[in-house]
């Protein structure tokens, strides 16, 4: 009897772990293979049958591509773009969202509807005009020019608005009673209460800035490229040197994967909070 029960739990576990493992292989397999390629010096990914596992492990590709590319510079560029992108997105979007959520004033609904309407415009449609604008502002080849157009996005404003609307109005009233200015209420009372929303915007903004490549290519010169843009040029230049590109790709995705793994908990909570809200 006991044995049968044990058998059943084993069977149940099997039924869960097998599909989980298959899915995990499907999602992670390409990355594992990429790492494998990056550790095989002088191998051609297009030889047939293709090399899947390295026969010996060698970090030569990493050393070479690191020397050639000056990755530290690209990582630094990416860090700057991402840092300012995230900080100012949070500040500006929450400042914009706060009155939209809490205040009563004329024109609120018009602003709101106008914002929703912009979400239907195809991504590429604004590029040309934005380029002309950035050019006119004299921001070509500056990090400001890269960051500025995407600082305030309708999506983030809505996320913050939703979060602010969830805060009971007593809190703002009590702040007012104590004579706090609206700015202080926003910064000292409201912002701490919407930490989950801040975490979501921070993480999504982090991902978007870290991975952006097209706009930086349009606005910046090669030496100011962030990682993703640099990677796409490396791929274009050395399409035959697979080990290098593989190593470069691994280097470029490693930081964000590490950040993701460290903040996984907030990702989860954040997304659920954003949707439920």
């Amino acid at each position, binding site marked *: 009897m006991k044995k049968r029960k044990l058998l059943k739990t084993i069977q149940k576990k099997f039924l*869960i772990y097998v*599909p*989980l493992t298959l*899915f*995990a292989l499907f*999602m*992670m397999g390409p*990355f594992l293979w*990429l790492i494998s*390629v990056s550790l095989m010096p002088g191998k051609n990914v*297009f030889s*047939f*049958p*293709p090399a899947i596992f390295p026969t010996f492990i060698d970090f030569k590709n990493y050393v070479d591509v690191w020397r050639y590319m000056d990755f530290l510079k690209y990582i630094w560029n990416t860090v700057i773009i991402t840092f300012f992108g995230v900080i100012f997105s949070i500040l*500006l*979007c929450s*400042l914009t969202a706060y009155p939209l959520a809490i*205040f*009563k*004033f004329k024109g609120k609904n018009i*602003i709101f509807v*106008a914002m929703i309407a912009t*979400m*239907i*415009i*195809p*991504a*590429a*449609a*604004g*590029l*040309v*005009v*934005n380029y002309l*604008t950035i050019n006119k502002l004299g921001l070509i080849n500056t990090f400001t020019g890269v960051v500025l*157009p995407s600082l*305030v996005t*309708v999506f983030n*404003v*809505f996320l913050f*608005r939703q979060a602010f609307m969830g805060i009971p109005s007593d809190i703002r009233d009590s702040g007012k009673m104590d004579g706090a200015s*609206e700015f202080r209420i*926003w910064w000292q009372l409201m912002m701490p209460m919407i930490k989950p929303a801040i975490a979501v915007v921070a993480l999504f903004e982090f991902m978007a800035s870290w*991975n952006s*490549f097209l706009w930086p290519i349009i606005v910046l010169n090669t030496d100011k490229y962030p*990682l*993703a*843009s640099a*990677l*796409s040029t490396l*791929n274009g230049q050395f399409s035959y040197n697979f080990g290098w590109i593989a190593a470069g790709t691994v280097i*470029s995705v490693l930081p964000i*994967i590490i950040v*993701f*793994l460290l903040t996984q908990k907030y990702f*989860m909570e954040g*997304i*659920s909070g954003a*949707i*439920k809200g």
Partner: protein
Amino acid sequence: MKQKRVAKLSRFSEVQTAWLFMGPGLILLALFTFWPIIYSVPLAFTNYSVIGETSFVGFENFKRAFSDVNFIASIKNSLLYMIIVPFIQILSILMAILVNRKIAGIKFFRAAFYIPVVTSMVAVSIIWGWLMSSNGVLNYTLLSIGIINEKINWLSDKDTALWAVMFITLWKGLGYYMMIYLAGLQAIPSDCIEAAKIDGASNFQVIRKITIPLLKPYVFFCTLISLMAAIRVFDEVFVLTSGGPGNETLTSSLYIYQQGFEVFEFGYSSALGIIISFIIMFFSIFIFLFNKKGGVNPY
């Protein structure tokens, strides 16, 4: 009387504070979101480009668009791209159900499913570009299992290119939707499921009768998001195929970009953007109506 005046005064200052708060954000939105939209309308009626003088051409650009084989193809491809939406929903719900339990190592699996989402499209495109090449691992695997008889050049074969890119989009996005559905699943009260189980419902019945109906709002939200994403698809086609072979993988976003930044026909590019916006508007109104029926407001 005096009190009324004070109230009125403070209300006036509330409007002012509102605009002070929103000022910086609205200026940026106006400059980089509204201005491109507004400015693209007059542009669409001109022949503005890097060469030659700009002049008003009336509806010329729009007429040209509807007889432009590439543009028609790009719209067709963008519409075809929407086919992945139901597949994304089904697969990601399945994944969410799989990872929605407290067992050893489940955190690892959740992370594994989500890693493609956080990775840049450039990196993903490089990897899948290699995997899908004619001598790549994909062909090797399929040949050895016996699913295909000869090598297929997935990304440059006319019949498979669009499907191959669509597959990459799907693969990269799955984790994102899985997380949303997982959040939805965890919002379902567990006593609801327990009660059903006590009444003798099977696992399958629970999924069909309780889980799926309660997930409905999330399905609407995800459908909306993934439809928008399907129409906006850009990065993967830009890196992997740049629209080829022929115009098999030319999506509307990519074509707008090409007309703007490769051919520098700003006027024509703007006209294309306007046409596509109208098409997207049609779909979003459609979904928003659906959405209302489902009783959920994602924002």
